[in-house]
Structures are given as C-alpha cells and as structure tokens.
C-alpha cells in the first residue's frame, strides 16, 4: 500500500480485521454514518453494516462496558473514544471490569479501546491527553502507542487478535503528518517489542508515540556534534520490552526517557526505576527524563509549546548527560 498515512493505516487495520474475523466490530460515538470525528472509520459502515459499526449515545461507560460484555461472550470489539480524554469517563469500567476478567474470573476479554491522544494541536486540556500512566498501576490492560504508520497498522491488528484487553493509543498529531509504504500482505507488530529507530553508542533516548520524531530530530542534531544517539521506540508500554531497554543502556551507559505526558507519575518513571534497579552498573550518569510540565495541557500555542517537551529540551538533557 503505497504512501499510507498513519490514520489510513488504522482504518486499514480495522477494515482488514473485520473482513478476516466476523467477531470483530466497532462501537463508539459517530463511528458509523459519519465515519468518526477524524474519519478514522470512514467507509466501514458501508462495508460491514450498522450492526458491526455501531453508533452509540454519548456514553463512555456504556461503550466500554458493552464492548467488554461482548468480548467475554467471544466477540472482539474495538471501542472508540472520540478523543482518548473521554476514557476518563469510563475509567472504572476499564480498570475494574475489562482489565480483570481473566485474573479474577478466568474469562478472556479480547477487546481494544482506541482513540486519538496527544497534544501539539492546540486542542487544549481536554483534547490533548496522553493517558498511559493512568492505567499502568491497574493491572490487566495491555497498552500500546504506535509512532509509525507501519506500527499503527501492525499493532492494531495484533491488539485485535490478542486475547486480552488492549488500550491502543493513537497520536492525532501523526494522523496525517506521516506516511509510508506499507506491505500489501497481512502483517502484525507483536505487542511488547520495542524498535531501535536509530542505532547509536553514546546515549540512549527511550520514547514512544509522537515524541519519536522529536527524539530523532534531536539525535540528528547531536550527530552533527559527533554524538551518536540510539533511539528506542518502545511501541508497547504494557508489557514493555525491558530487554531492549537494558541492552541499549548497557551499551550507551547514558539514558534519556522522553514522553509527552507530564513528568510526575508518568510512564517514564517506571522505565527509569527499572533501569536504576537493573542496569545500575552500566550507568555513567544520572537518568534523565524529558516530559511535559506537571500541568494540564494549555490551549494557547505559546503555552502549549512551553509545556510540552521539544527538541531543545532533549538536547539540553543530552548535553548535560554527555558533560557528566
């Protein structure tokens, strides 16, 4: 599939999985007739009918709850949050019901909850959320966050086929900003595996989602200074590829964790803690995190830009580490 955008990759993944497996269906607000607020499901209702592309009332509890109920009956629902921010309204249902079906009751609950996340689009505090950390301490949910069109498709297909519930975080900033040629044949990207996006030996930057491009930009600029940064795209947050993280740190001895969510209590803290326990001997410098300010994402562009991480902040952290 030549020149497929990130958002088209998501649409393709849904269409192909729905064609492949009649247990797969889509449920959410305006996903049917309208094709989704971002047109992510555009055309699906024509292909699969209103019974498999279900427009719901504005009810995130019901969307997640009904998807979970269908999943434990053997279906494979994809539940869309119009913006991932609204997952907070169905938070209870996801962490207390969907996530624990297997551990508590021995029931499989194969479902995907997905929706547009992330900032940089002046969406303001209620349309810019990076939700991963909210779910990390509530066991039972897998969490993925693709950064490329290839992964957007492959991870979504893997998530649909997974026998456990998966939170699939798609970054709306990337929807139409990136594209690449995708394989014509069916493929998946396995959950739990990171990708090394740039090999390097002097410093590791661990990141995911839209921040990958910030990391790569920073790495390119560092390269001009003769610094060779390795960039790891985590792709899966739960489970995460601890091996890939530790291997890279063992090689470079310096690490920055970069994420778009606020610093405190962010997912990066977990990765830092793992490294500080398991790769302690390899560290030649403190572990740095570059993340958003501890505030709700403000709306006005100058404020938003200041609050979110960017290349300059990564470079600053990198230079501090290298000078250490």
């Amino acid at each position, binding site marked *: 599939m030549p020149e497929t955008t990130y958002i088209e990759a998501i649409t393709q993944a849904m269409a192909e999985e729905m064609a492949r497996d009649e247990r797969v269906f889509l449920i959410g607000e305006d996903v049917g007739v309208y094709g989704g607020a971002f047109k992510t499901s555009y055309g699906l209702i024509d292909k699969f009918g209103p019974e498999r592309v279900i427009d719901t*009332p504005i*009810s995130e509890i019901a969307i997640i709850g009904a998807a979970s109920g269908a999943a434990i009956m053997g279906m494979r629902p994809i539940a869309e949050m119009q913006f991932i921010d609204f997952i907070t309204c169905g938070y209870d*249902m996801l962490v207390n019901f969907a996530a624990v079906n*297997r*551990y508590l009751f*021995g029931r499989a609950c194969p479902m995907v909850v997905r929706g547009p996340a992330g900032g940089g689009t002046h969406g303001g505090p209620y349309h810019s959320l990076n939700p991963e950390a909210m779910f990390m301490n509530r066991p039972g949910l897998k969490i993925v966050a693709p950064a490329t069109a290839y992964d957007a498709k492959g991870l979504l297909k893997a998530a649909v086929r997974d026998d456990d519930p998966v939170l699939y975080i798609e970054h709306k900033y990337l929807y139409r900003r990136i594209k690449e040629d995708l394989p014509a044949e069916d493929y998946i990207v396995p959950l739990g595996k990171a990708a090394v996006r740039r090999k390097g030996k002097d410093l590791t930057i661990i990141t995911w989602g839209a921040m990958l491009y910030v990391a790569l930009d920073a790495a390119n600029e560092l390269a001009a200074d003769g610094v060779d940064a390795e960039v790891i795209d985590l792709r899966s947050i739960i489970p995460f590829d601890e091996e890939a993280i530790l291997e890279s740190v063992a090689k470079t001895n310096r690490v920055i964790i970069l994420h778009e969510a606020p610093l405190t209590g962010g997912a990066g803290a977990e990765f830092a803690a793992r490294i500080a326990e398991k790769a302690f001997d390899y560290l030649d410098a403190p572990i740095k995190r570059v993340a958003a300010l501890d505030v709700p994402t403000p709306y006005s562009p100058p404020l938003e830009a200041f609050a979110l991480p960017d290349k300059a902040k990564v470079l600053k952290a990198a230079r501090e580490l290298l000078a250490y």
Partner: protein
Amino acid sequence: MVETYGLTRDQLLDIEYYLRLTRSLEERVVALFRQAKVIGGLYRSLGQEGESVAAAYALDYKQGDVVQPLIRNVGAILVAGAKPVDILRQYMAKGNSPTRGRELNIHFGNPQTDGFIGQISMLGDMIPVMAGITLAGRMQKKNLVGLAFIGDGGSSTGAFWEGMNFASVQRLPLVVIIEDNGYAYSTPTWKQSAARTLADKAYAFGCTGETVDGNDVLAVYDATKRAVERARSGGGVTLLEVKTFRMKGHAEHDNQAYVPKELIEQWREKDPVVRFERMLIENGFATQEDITAIEQRVKREIDIATDEADASPMPTPSDAALGLFDGDGYWNA
C-alpha cells in the same frame, strides 16, 4: 384456583426447592461465618429469595439466557445452575472455587457456559456489561435473553443509566429487575431517588416499565416471563421493579438500627417463602410432607456441599502471580 401462569406442579415444586435451597444455603453460610470459616462479609437475601428465584426461573438456560445477580440474588444463580459447593468454596476462599480464591462470594460465572455472571462490586457496572452480553448474543444469532438485577441504590449510578439507555436504543433483549428493598445500606429509597416509583425510570429510557409485588413468587415469575418473551421477540428492554424488603442489615455486622421495627414486622408477615408454601398447600400442589421432604433434600445436599467445600484446599500462595494475561497457561491447568 390460583393462576400459575403455565407453571406445572413439578415446576412449582422445583421453585419451592430453589426457595428452600437459597434460604438454607444462606443459613449455612451464616453458621460457617460464625465458625470464622467465611472470609469477608456476608450479605443476606432473607425476604428476597422469592423474587430472585422466580425471576431467574423465567429464563431458558438451554437457549443461552444469562442472569446477572447482585449479592442478594444467590437464589437466581442456583436456578441458573450454580452449585452450592461452588458458592461455599467462594465464601471460604478456597483454591478450587470458581475464581480460585481471587474473588468473593457469588462474584463468579461465565456467561458463555454457566448461564450466569456474577457482578463486580462497582454497582451499576453490570448493566452496560449485560447490554454487551445481549448485544453479542444478537450478533451471534443466539436469540438469548439477559436478566440483570439492580438495587434501589445501584440504580442511582451513572453506569446503570448509560447501560439502560444504550440497551433501550438498541432494543436489546434485556430484562432489568430493580429491587426496591427499602434500603441501600442505611439509605432509604426516598433519599436515593425522588421518582414516584423506580419503575418510572423506564420513561427515561423509553423502555417498558412495570411494578410488581416482589414477595409474590408467582407475580414475579409472570411479570419476568412476559418481559423475557418481549425481549426475545424483539420488543426490547423491560425495567421491572419488584417491591420487597431487606429483612436483615446490609451485612452481618449491621444491626439495622436505622430501620423502624414496625417496618420489619410488617414485612415479616409477607415472607415470600412462607407465602409460596401456603399457596402450594392451599391449592393442593403440595402437602406439608412434600415440603418437609424438600427441606430434607436441601439439607442433605447442603451438608454434602459443606463437607466438600470445607475439605477443599486453600489456594497455593504463589499462584497469585499467575493468570493475569493469556499465555502462562494458568487458567487451562
């Protein structure tokens, strides 16, 4: 002659069996609780066995119907096929209980295989889940019906509302029984809702609403049966309010001091099991001996179940680490 809504004598005696089984099983759990063999709380359904059993009796489990009880609907899952020994193992937190010691009391069941699914603690959450279960049933062309219980208290939650609304828009084959048993913990129904009657909530969903005497086994059976038929034939959701009373405190530790004594006395007169047995005898469906025989059968079964549950092992501690995700084989073992 009383109207039995098509129930045969055998079925009436079957209902009597479940009523007694429910009451006696709970009494056994109380005894075990006093012996400190029950871990966690104990929530009685005394006075509510009638509606629990009668409603669940209106389903067709061979058809794939699914009942979702609350903590006080142990009678409903017994009807659906839950085994007393499993319920006792759950209370006693045994390793071979259906949840292998991970969850409490009647919080268990697989809707695909068991005919019932226990609630989770967050009240209201099961209504959207049951909407999903019945939605799946429809997609899978199973023609099954779901029966969900919710309390006067639980019906105040946003989850209940969203689930009812979605199910009603979708005209899902779902029957929801709203049990007005006077209280939610210590909170009387009038502090829970200002609605004229809880069945009035049906107007908000545009589904069918009805109120029935929850201590009248036959009336509950009839109303549920009609609702189930409506659901199965595409007529959508019914919200069926049963008026009943919680004869004990919220849980064993609660002496219900906040409940006027007269109210309890008043409702004691209406005991659904006694009333049903009186009906059986007065209408010649059973003799006192038949009932005694059922009681003895129930006692025997519970004795056996108790011994079996008591002898069951506690879980292996290190198992706590297993079975969160697919892949470690824990649940296949």
